[in-house]
């Protein structure tokens, strides 16, 4: 009995030690960035975790534009592109997935195989084509074109996930609604959509975070600093040969990360259930 208790203490003790170590590993880079954002100067040479003479200068600098620096414009661009992509993907994906899940039509099987193949080929291996397309259509720097490309890229994988999820909603619900005289459109809106909410949350998250983190596609289409999104803008900031500004970058990074992280943690519950159920069924 004594040794069982001792074993338990070792197990729990080492668990807590491990969790504390992991927490340090997770918090250190974040704390370091917060520290850097309050540090004076541009470089990180004299940076300390807790700044000796903290300054808000970098946050003030973010509100200004100078040369090719347009932080707030980038922020708004990123937000706009991500939100519109999210809304359009959710709409297109759920409608397409509903068709693939509930109807048997010619070309259905081929369509599913096509989606499966397309989700494996990374979209930006077609970089050159997208760039040529932008030039031909005179849509270089166009957020509209970029959004369409993002939404198109979201369709294959998310449709597959969503279709798997809708498959798990009993068809008997549709049938009884059909007997009550409901049309397909009503069945979709009033039965499928509410029941598929967890997966809709997953698709929405993918639609939002995909464009928010994309560097490859956006750097091909967006060439004018004013049209940049945050990944390109911030990347250029620390890779600027004329003088990288890590502290300014740190302030910009904090300003985007905190709201995104808060929203993410608040909404977590909604898409986690979709991920676990959908991922294992899909």
């Amino acid at each position, binding site marked *: 009995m004594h040794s069982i208790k001792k074993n*338990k203490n070792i197990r729990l003790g080492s668990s807590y030690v491990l969790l504390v170590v992991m927490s340090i590993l*997770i918090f250190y880079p*974040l704390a370091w960035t917060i520290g850097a954002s309050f540090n004076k100067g541009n470089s990180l040479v004299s940076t300390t975790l807790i700044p000796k003479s903290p300054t808000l200068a970098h946050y003030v600098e973010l509100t200004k534009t100078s040369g090719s620096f347009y932080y707030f414009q980038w922020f708004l661009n990123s937000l706009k592109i991500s939100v519109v992509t999210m809304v359009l993907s959710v709409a297109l994906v759920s409608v397409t997935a509903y068709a693939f899940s509930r109807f048997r039509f010619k070309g259905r099987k081929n369509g599913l195989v096509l989606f*499966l193949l397309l989700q494996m080929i990374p979209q930006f*291996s077609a970089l*050159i084509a997208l760039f040529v397309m932008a030039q031909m259509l005179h849509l270089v720097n166009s957020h509209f074109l970029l959004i369409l490309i993002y*939404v198109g890229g979201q369709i294959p994988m998310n449709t597959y996930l969503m279709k798997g999820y809708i498959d798990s909603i009993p068809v008997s619900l549709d049938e009884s609604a059909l007997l009550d005289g409901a049309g397909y459109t009503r069945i979709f809106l009033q039965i499928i959509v509410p029941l598929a909410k967890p997966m809709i949350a997953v698709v929405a998250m993918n639609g939002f975070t995909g464009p928010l983190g994309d560097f490859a596609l956006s750097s091909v289409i967006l060439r004018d600093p004013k049209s940049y999104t945050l990944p390109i803008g911030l990347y250029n900031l620390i890779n600027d040969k004329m003088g990288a500004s890590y502290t300014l970058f740190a302030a910009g990074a904090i300003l985007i990360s905190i709201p995104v992280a808060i929203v993410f943690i608040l909404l977590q519950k909604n898409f986690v259930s979709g991920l676990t159920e959908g*991922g294992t069924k899909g």
Partner: protein
Amino acid sequence: MDKAAKQSKSHAKTAALLSIIPGLGQLYNKQLIKGIGFLIIAILYVTGFWSLFNMGFWGLFTLGTEVPRDNSIFLLAEGLIAVLILGIGLLFYYMNFRDAYQNGEKIDMGQHPEKFVGSIKSLFNTNYPYLLISPGLLLLIFTVIFPILFSFALAFTNYDLYHTAPAHLADWVGFNTFKQIFTVDIWRSTFFDVLGWTVIWTLVASTLSVTIGIFMAIVVHQKDLRLKKLWRTVLVLPWAVPGFVTILIFAGMFNDSFGAVNTVILHALGIHPVSWMTNAAWTKVALLFVQSWLGFPYIFVVTTGVLQSIPEDLYEAAIMDGATAWQKFSKITLPFILAQMAPIIITQYTFNFNNFNIIYLFNNGGPAVPNSTAGGTDILVSWIYKLTMQSNQYALAAALTILLSVFVIGIALWQFKRTNSFKEG
């Protein structure tokens, strides 16, 4: 009976035959508005796209003949668009035949083909799924399928910096570029170096994320562990912060001269500074660390969900049978997790195979390798990006795209055959 059956097809056949010119078959079936509508659409289609077809197919075959009038790449793009539009047109042409035939059949059976309003209604009902998928499908065709086809076509041209408009034209060269990848020494060695690291990267980075994620989920899931909610929130943080931000932060922290890893952590431990960004081997270590940091929370969250769904009575039965803690874990918990999470674990691998962001944003795929277009830590996708955006070797980039796609699709199909999850479709 035999004769009647034969005769009963006559309307259908005539209607279908007449439909060689779209609309005539429908007119023959006495569907006036529909017939005229089809006819007008057909005329508009042919007149509207005639010059595109003319120009497109000429361009597709020749890729231009005169400098500086012709731009080979634009011609190629127009040609492919012509092919796509022709394809869509043929699909509708086929549907026109079918429609005429089916309505003719109705007449043969003594029924009346539907009036215009009726056929709109039935269009809505029988073709409802097509109506649903067409917006998504159209977008997919022009933003995903067309660019991929275009890239594939480019692989068979010699398009690069020296064959660029307006001064030069590009030409079809068949499999030349592919041959060069495997025969020109510098290309071959770069290709196999990059492919090798891509495979190692994919396997190690994904396996690390998966293992850490599952392990941490099990640790936090222990019944007598306190502050579960707090630990879970903390462990999810790396996923909550936008990935590109984290990668750029780590790029700063691993900086050789002023990064915190060298100046603070290793300094405190009394270890000499490590050249994280200039030595490929060390960059790889750093990349694996950063990707584990970024990737484990997702697996952690999903595993936590799966753990909570394991039926409690399984464990109770095991305890009755006198199972040890290790037996419970290896015989119940782990198999359950792996079975439930197989698809999600596989997506980790495909994700990392294509994980452009971390490779490019962390250290530009570098450090640079002398005489090579690829850096020391470039994976296939980041190499393709560099070839396109930095050294303008478009044809080579496109050929690599094809090889990459074949590789990925091959593995995926093999995987699907093994798991059999494909059968359900």
